[in-house]
């Protein structure tokens, strides 16, 4: 009886083992890359809303303060989405016949709610709180990006946990004076780390051990 396996079979066996291993590594890398890709995180994706509301116009152009509409940002975990009433404060006088604003007028007229689509959507097991971030000197545009230049809103950051933790470990890299929090034109100073450390002390911001405790965000 002849040999069942030729000497070449060894090479085949070894290379197939290597192939399986390589395939595994590549698959793992793919999954990891996909998970962090903007496809999964929805980063930089424009979102179609029921009304083509332009932050670029209202914030950049008109110069409205963020808090004119997002009223509870300093007092609640949720920044607040303005009620139709807030839109109508101006739009009962301005652009009263503009077709683009018909959904707003219809909402006001029929007492039906506008259904916005959430852009910066954290998973439900994360309990983010606007109130404390604003108080401790995290600027709106640090997380939300150049809102004053966004004709349509998009998610400016990945919102991955590593992104959150980056700041929670070293907030001095990002924080600014409280007075500048709502300023979309704030320029990051050259000595950010130095200034940040001073602010961290002044604002009594907890150390990294506190800020990275799980129950700060998950509960």
């Amino acid at each position, binding site marked *: 009886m002849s040999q069942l396996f030729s000497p070449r079979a060894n090479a085949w066996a070894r290379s197939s083992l290597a192939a399986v291993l390589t395939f595994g590594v590549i698959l793992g890398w793919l999954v990891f890359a996909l*998970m962090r890709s903007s496809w*999964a995180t929805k980063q930089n994706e424009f979102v179609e809303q029921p009304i083509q509301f332009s932050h670029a116009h209202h914030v950049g152009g008109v110069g409205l303060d963020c808090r004119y509409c997002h*009223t*509870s940002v300093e007092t609640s975990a*949720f920044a*607040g989405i303005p009620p139709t009433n807030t839109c109508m404060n101006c739009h009962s006088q301005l652009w009263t016949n503009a077709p683009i604003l018909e959904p707003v007028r219809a909402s006001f007229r029929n007492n039906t709610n506008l259904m916005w689509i959430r852009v910066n959507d954290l998973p439900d097991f994360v309990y983010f709180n606007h109130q404390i971030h604003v108080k401790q000197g995290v600027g709106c545009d640090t997380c939300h990006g150049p809102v004053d230049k966004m004709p349509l809103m998009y998610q400016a950051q990945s919102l991955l946990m590593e992104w959150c933790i980056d700041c929670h470990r070293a907030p001095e890299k990002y924080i600014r004076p409280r007075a500048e929090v709502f300023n979309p034109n704030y320029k990051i100073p050259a000595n950010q780390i130095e200034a940040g450390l001073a602010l961290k002390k002044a604002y009594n911001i907890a150390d990294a051990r*506190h800020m990275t405790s*799980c129950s700060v965000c998950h*509960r």
Partner: protein
Amino acid sequence: MTLADIRTRLDGLEGRTYWRSLEELADTDEFRAYVHREFPEQASEFRDPAGRRDFLKLMGASIALAGVSACTRQPVERIVPYVRQPEEIVPGRPLFYATSMPQGGFGHPLLAENHMGRPTKLEGNPEHPASLGATDIFGQASVLTLYDPDRSRTVIGRGEVRTWGTFVAAITAAVNTQRALKGQGLRLLTEPITSPSLVDQIRTLLAGLPEAKWHQWDPVYGVRQGGAPTTTAIYRFDKADVILSLDADFLGFGPGAVRYTKDFSSRRRMGTPQDALNRLYTVEPVPTITGANADHRLALKARDVQAFAAAVATDVGVTGAGGGALSAEAGKWIAPLAADLAAHKGRSAVVAGDHQPASVHALARAMNEALRNVGATVTYTAPVAASPADGARSIADLVGDMKAGKVDLLIILGGNPVFTAPADLGFTAALAKVTTAVHLGLYHDETAELCHWHIPEAHFLESWGDVRAFDGTVSLVQPLIAPIYDGHPAIEILATMNGAPGQPAMDLVKAYWTTAFAGTSTPAWTLRNSNGQPFANADTFWRHALHDGFIASTSALLAAPGASAPAGPAPAPPAAAASNAGLEIVFRPDPHILDGRFINNGWLQELPKPLSKLTWDNVAYLSVRTAARLGVANEDVIDVKYGGASARVPVWVMPGTADDVVAVHFGYGRRRTGRVGTDLGVDTFPLRTSAAPWFGSGAEVTRTGDTHELASTQNHFAMEGRHPVRVVTADEFRKNAKAIADLGHNRPPDALSLYDPKVHENTGHKWGMAIDLNSCTGCGVCVAACVAENNIPVVGKAQVKRSREMHWIRVDTYFEGDPAQPEGTYHQPVPCQQCENAPCETVCPVAATVHSAEGLNDMVYNRCVGTRYCSNNCPYKVRRFNFLLYSDFTTPELYAQRNPDVTIRSRGVMEKCTYCVQRINHARVDAKTTGQALKDGDIKTACQQVCPADAIVFGDLNDPTSQVTKLKQTDRNYGLLEDLGTRPRTSYLGVVRNPNEALKS
């Protein structure tokens, strides 16, 4: 194992012995195996018909897919702003409104948490004298009833869906017909009512229809055996040094229980060994929470309580108290007890229970008068309930009229008399003779089914109204949400009958009170604001009262301090039963379901009942001796025969039940209910007659040979008798301040630990908890509050049976001594101990449970992969695993109930107590925002906030002035299983009982 064997075993043990159940005492191999099992039953078995091979294949695929699932995109989520936002609502922040829960006619004051229009959690009203910030379990669980998807949703008229308008037209026509007849054929059947505005409506109706009659029936709160007492007693237990309870469960049941527990426990603190303790004697047939907290407890047949009370009364100087035969054991009690009471004149209290006849109440009053307690620890007032009818007689009169065909129009406002009426009356048959019967109720129940009209009732969280608390304080009921299911409150039906249809309840209630304020009606009190000044106008008064939730100065105690309503003529003691043969049957409402009104409430079903720790079933209690004599054990079904009726009830052998007593619980076995309550328990109402609603002699019990599975949590999570609860007497403690510390093993030196000591150095806050076992009464409301606060799911009887209940805090009960006659009962609430050297953390392979910088043992649900190693390594057994998808993700009605600040856990995730970390985070964020430091008491955990005994104290251990720090420095403080070196952050204050030496020997 027989009783004699158990006794021999007990005698062989040294020192005091504590046990949780008869199974534990018997120490069978089965029980050992149960305790030693790593995980609850069937957790480690694979019994599905699919084979092991299929299972592995499926698991392989699941693991492969699990990695990919992390890459999915989140589903689109919408944000829906208001069109016109109410000014006071800040999205993300709850609002709190004062309201009241009416139950049995009495008000339970509440503070309701409202998230953007959804009531989610009820707390006690801290300013109200009947609550002082705490609630009972019904206060916690009633928010679930509000959202119950099985509540009735439409008006039903003669079997068809109708509108409210059709009903208004029909009732108006029917009442108009009655007007011509002066109301001859009109009967009103209500539950006991204290609401002034509702009574006003009823009085108006009866004034216009002089021959109409008003009847009352409530099988739990409105029935007195042998006549109702003519006065109501209100106690001040904070002023009483010695208390005698004659079958009164004043700590566990009734409208005053919360306040009474507050007052009673304030005398059990014992901060230093020198502090005085009160002393409680309890005489009762069935073990209750009050009995469990007694320093001396005597199990006595219900009928013998009269003779016992008479003997004590004679000894304390009451003349003409009568007498009766007493057992030798009871006889030994009389002299020392009477001497103790007499030694505390003006500082003692004798309490007669609602289940005892008026004659016992008269004896209790005579004793209180002889002991000069009246005006000091007891006040007798006119009954708080309006038109106090003896429920059994009242409904008997009604049924008589119904049978005689005198009733044309029967209006049933609340209650379920078809199910609950005394069996001897034949209410159901009589109802068929009524021309038109109208039923108002939360559910389309047995009564609704047989009535011509059914109107869905508005839940109290959807209604305007008013109600009096146990002390007479008028409390306002204000809605937290518009009626979800188109319900209407009783007052709207009465207003319709009074010819004012379409009047909203708010206008009716407000009009009543502002008229009373204006002085055009004649209320018996003067309304003033908290500064004692008259209000400027009706509107300021109304707003003030709504804000507070009650009208101060309406308490019966304030009306005439010290003065007492006159006692009526002494009622004759009930004629002795013809024969004392057979067993005594004692009726009790199920502690959580009551008469069946809460049967569709999953929280209450799953909350372990006091002492027996049963869930999802009703039982008959038998004493250890009686069960042995009858040859029955737990889960055996017995046939109880009484008064010509019989019921097959499962047995629970309850240590502490009086011998020759069969204590039957009613409320289960409902025929028409919702998805939760269907096919649960047995109906024992057929045994209950109008002559003997609470107890009677001559019951017969026979074995049937059948068994019925019961799910009791008493043996779950046992810690194998390693001194979990420590008990000393006051004398021992005074002699040796270290008496409690000496009872357990010491904490090992820290140097022996392999843990990094830095883990438990907390630079900022350092959270800790102390639980006072001496003031804890074991009522279990902490469990209910935890369920409501933390979105804890209901798992069902089959899962409880497998030890899979999800409660993050449990109340362990330990009995002491001979099971036939336990000397003591002790309770221990056990939440997560937040160990500094947490054994759970080191074994988690994915770091899903780790320490926070403030010393919390955090649980991260989104990291957990469900290995359950942590729960295996937890010596306290406080971790709970979602073996199945227990949270209800599919019933939309229930979504609105959930606390939005706590994650709803899915299948395969471990969960546990984290000291209500959501509350800690909110308070910390607010403190940082305002720039002020957190003060002691700013953060209260849900269990702490609700505890009527103030037994749970939470706070910052880095704050030397905080209450918890001070408690932990007292001599009673000890850690649970401290010898394991886990360094628990939760500690316990040991029990100090205050027995009477004269009675001990």
